[in-house]
């Protein structure tokens, strides 16, 4: 791994437990600026839990305890003086299933910036976010329509636009295509690739083709442990660990 890359986020010895049961164990991981990092691994390996720890979404799950540090540009996100609401202004999130608010398309994108009092003209901000999410041309004439009338793929791009409108530094994506058809998936993968220009992206996926297509770095997790982390090319073609090789070549289990 090239050392000149700047780490935006650093997980240091992170262990996360649900009611005492470790879901993530002693993970050390650096997320690099304006790169796409994929986290892969079998179901239940703790990849989503790790992702949610990066914007403190695990705070909403009962009986979760966490050890270790998550450093964002040197500040521990779990430090006593850190406001979790502020953390989420820097880390946007896209969820596994499209979850637009049951409101208009415009309101979906505008709500976050409005309640946080972000500067600038809100109409421009919404348009910019929708353009970045490659949705503008499809919805520009019906911004006041309910977001629930959009197709699944459009809804997910709307959710991406909603995250982009906050102009976060990092975008966390939790299996963003798992509920979508192949055409919508391809569109979102293209989109993720373009967003790399301006954002640091962490994507959790159990689709290995997706990881190899879009990501710069790949982390492979199994049973809560980080087994291997490195260049996507290297992880997929010359894995150092036997278990990684078994998983990426489909000889798993």
């Amino acid at each position, binding site marked *: 791994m090239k050392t000149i890359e700047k780490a935006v986020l650093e997980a240091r010895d992170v262990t996360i437990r649900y009611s005492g049961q470790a879901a993530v164990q002693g993970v050390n991981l650096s997320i690099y600026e304006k790169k796409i990092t994929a986290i892969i691994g079998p179901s239940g390996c703790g990849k989503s839990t790790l992702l949610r720890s990066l*914007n403190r*979404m695990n705070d*909403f799950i*009962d009986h979760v305890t966490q050890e270790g540090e998550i450093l964002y540009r040197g500040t521990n996100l779990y430090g006593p003086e850190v406001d979790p*609401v*502020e953390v*989420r*202004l820097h880390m*946007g*999130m896209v*969820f596994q*299933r499209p*979850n*637009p*608010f*049951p409101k208009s398309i415009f309101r979906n994108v505008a*709500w*976050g910036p409005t*309640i*946080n009092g972000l500067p600038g003209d809100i109409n421009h901000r919404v348009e910019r976010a929708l353009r970045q999410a490659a949705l503008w041309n499809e919805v520009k004439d019906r911004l006041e329509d309910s977001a629930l009338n959009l197709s699944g793929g459009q809804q997910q791009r709307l*959710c991406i636009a*909603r*995250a982009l*409108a*906050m102009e976060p530094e990092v975008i966390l994506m939790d299996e963003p295509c798992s509920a979508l058809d192949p055409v919508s998936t391809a569109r979102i993968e293209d989109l993720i690739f373009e967003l790399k220009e301006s954002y640091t992206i962490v994507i959790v996926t159990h689709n290995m083709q997706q990881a190899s297509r879009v990501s710069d770095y790949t982390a492979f997790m199994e049973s809560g442990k980080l087994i291997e982390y490195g260049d996507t090319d290297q992880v997929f073609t010359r894995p150092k660990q036997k278990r990684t090789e078994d998983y990426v070549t489909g000889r798993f289990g």
Partner: protein
Amino acid sequence: MRSDLADHQSSKTLGARSLKRRHLVARLFKSICLGFTLFAVGVLGLLIFQVGADGLPWLDWKFLNNFPSRFPERAGVKSALYGTLWVVSLTALIALPTGVLAAIYLEDYAPKSRLTRIIDINIANLAGVPSIVYGILGLAIFVRFLGLERSVLAGALTMSLLILPVIIISSKEAIRAVPSSIRLAAYAVGATQWQVVRFHVLPAAIPGILTGVILALSRAIGETAPLIMIGALTYVAFVPEGPMDEFTALPIQIFNWTSRPQAEFHELAAAGIIVLLAVLLTMNALAVLIRYKGTR
């Protein structure tokens, strides 16, 4: 093994016996359901017909505008109708914010602890407590201890206690029905808990909450026992003008009339029932309207 095979083969020929029997059972069940439904609707229809036949001739402007009297032709429900409207409005004013805020706290803020669970269970139990028990409680606390006497306020507070569990339970259910994915989405764009509740949870839950509230108030309208318990009067020849005035209510007036020997008063009671039903149906229509508007 052999009999299994035989069954399998017989089911392949059309007109298999077991299928016929199953259809018969299905039709029989449907008929039984229909029969019981018709019975229930029939009894209700008969009741309404009886009440209508007795009461409608007495129902006129004078009936609504007169105070009770020992002469049936001069008697009316003015004081009872006003008393009921007073009590229900005050009850709504007290129970609605209390119940909804309690539901929001229990559902969204309270830690998922043992204590919270105990409170939840006890609220559910309170919903099943007989109304007369609330009357005794109201008599002890509001009428005697707080010295509110037999006022509209004492009645409304007692009624509020009675319907609070119902309001809290239905509001909690409406709030719980808001998908957590919406809450998480809102948190993910930097919302505080208050903003999530204010802009996402409440708007989505309000139709359900209001339906529950209005159904609970409808129950309060029909309750007699707690009001008699706290000493609401049976003969009132004035309209309450403030929350501290004495009062009577429609069910009390109806009860009073039915317990008199003269047949005319029984017919007056029927007319009173029609007025009570009209108030009830108006409120239920309101609930349906709100639900319809909310789900559109």
